[in-house]
């Protein structure tokens, strides 16, 4: 049971995002492992404990992402392939999936590929399914439960849908994207943190993957960002004074007569 986990470094969800002249201000941002990728990695590690095999991280991101990748290794992944070259950066979901697909194809036989359901910076929620299509594999997105057959040939997953869930059976290899609720990601142990720095940390460039530099990263993007804007300000709200009963009555009146939503 060999798994590949795609891991991305993103700004902490508690980070304040500031936009200046059409760009995100990067100074002062704390970076973390994309929270959904932690669920993806935990799931791979969990099945490694049961079925054996190897867990390999593939991460596309700048040199800066090294600390987050080390956290993935400290959690228990066996090795990493980091696509750190500048040519890989700044792509859209398509260009990113293309580079990851090439890296995964080069790694050879794999039984399951785990991604987070989306990265919490770009919010595309697209790379997992694109990757599956490019590798000609089935995919199940936003899984909240996974059972892999003992022979490692098939799996049954649950995914959340509006007002319920779908139960999906798939052959392996397949791509799964992890939704919150799938598991509780482990914290790296002291031993894990110590060992992380001794694990194989490989770096692949565009030529290692046999890709044309024009087909990945910003040059390969099929989506062009024209502008980035701060969200519109909400009009200042007001606190309704008075005793709770009076305030509740007044708010309900305002919802009907002023906001006209009831």
């Amino acid at each position, binding site marked *: 049971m060999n798994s590949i986990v795609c891991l991305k470094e993103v700004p902490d969800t508690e980070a304040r995002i500031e936009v200046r002249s059409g760009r995100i201000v990067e100074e002062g941002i704390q970076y973390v492992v994309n929270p959904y990728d932690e669920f993806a990695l935990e799931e791979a590690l969990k099945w490694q404990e049961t079925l054996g095999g190897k867990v390999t991280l593939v991460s596309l991101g700048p040199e800066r992402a090294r600390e987050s990748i080390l956290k993935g290794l400290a959690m228990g992944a066996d090795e990493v392939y980091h696509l750190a070259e500048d040519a890989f950066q700044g792509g859209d*979901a398509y260009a990113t999936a293309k580079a990851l697909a090439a890296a995964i194809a080069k790694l050879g036989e794999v039984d399951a590929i785990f991604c987070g359901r989306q990265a919490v910076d770009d*919010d595309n929620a697209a790379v997992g399914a694109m990757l599956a299509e490019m590798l000609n594999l089935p*995919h199940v*997105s936003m899984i909240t439960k996974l059972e892999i057959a003992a022979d490692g040939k098939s799996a049954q997953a649950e995914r959340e849908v*509006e007002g319920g869930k779908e*139960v999906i059976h798939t052959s392996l290899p397949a791509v799964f994207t992890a939704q919150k609720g799938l598991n509780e990601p482990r914290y790296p142990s002291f031993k894990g943190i110590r060992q992380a720095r001794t694990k194989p940390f490989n770096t692949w460039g565009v030529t290692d993957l046999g890709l044309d530099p024009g087909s990945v990263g910003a040059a390969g993007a099929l989506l062009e960002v024209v502008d980035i804007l701060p969200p519109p300000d909400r009009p200042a*709200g007001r606190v309704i004074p008075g005793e709770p009963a009076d305030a509740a009555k007044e708010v309900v009146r*305002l919802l009907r007569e002023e906001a006209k939503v009831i």
Partner: protein
Amino acid sequence: MGNILVFAEQRNGVLKKVAFEMLGLGSQLAAGLGGTVEAALLGSGLSGLPDALGQYGASKVYVADDPALANYSGEGYTNTLAGLIAKIQPAVVLVGATFMGKDLAPRLAARLGVGLAADCIAFAVDGGNLVATRPIFAGKALSKVRLLRTPQMATVRPNVLPAPQPDAGKKAVVEAIASDAGTVRAKVVDVVTAGKGEVDVAEAETIVSGGRGVAGPDGFAPIRSLAKTLGAAVGASRAAVDAGWIEHSHQVGQTGKTVTPTLYIACGISGAIQHLAGMRTSKVIVAVNKDPEAPIFKVASYGIVGDLFTVVPLLEKEFKALLAE
């Protein structure tokens, strides 16, 4: 020619509201692009649905009605839609950013070799091309994007764009298309529905949400009760979900769902930045919190400083009185 193809999602013979919203959007875009709006309808047992799509503005509906498409599958729906798109060559393909659409659209885009603008909330036409606006960082910023290949493909966030008024006089041309489900390796074997009549936060017009202030799983009782009175969905902050008081499917925010209801009532939610990101585009926000300094009051249209266990039942009483009028 710039025809627009809308993927008209249905489950169990019921069309998603976002399909109508996209037909309205498509009609506007078609005016700028010089084409018509068409719809693709996939599933099994779909009689009656093409007529509804026509009334909402589709000039033509391509229908793949086949038991093999009864349950959604990323592969089966991609195969069928890719065949249709190759044949009719639309300029724009719109898919709802629902659980199904978010699963389908990226796979289809990769098959077609085109980019994808995901979860868009606004569109414009500039020089014959789409410019789509999409929230990033869960709404902490907005990104305006252009798609560099044809068809220009986007998913559209539900509940943001107005659905047009249906016109009973309008009729769509209906064309049956080949359903080429092909080999489906990831197959739905069961669909389990949650509690009866429970509204999902992602689709709700009204949401009543609880946070740390509910103080335990039982603390959601007044929130559920108010939600029931209003026909609303029950939402929750990350604090309440991480404490194990309610399931993750209720979570609103950056690691939950981003929502755009007409009315969002936040009870005992302080307003952490990652929660605000997920609900700040709600049309009207009501906040109930003990702490007058809580950041939630900065985004609330109307705030009440007080204990939710006192205030929420009072709100419910007032709503009941109003709804009984």
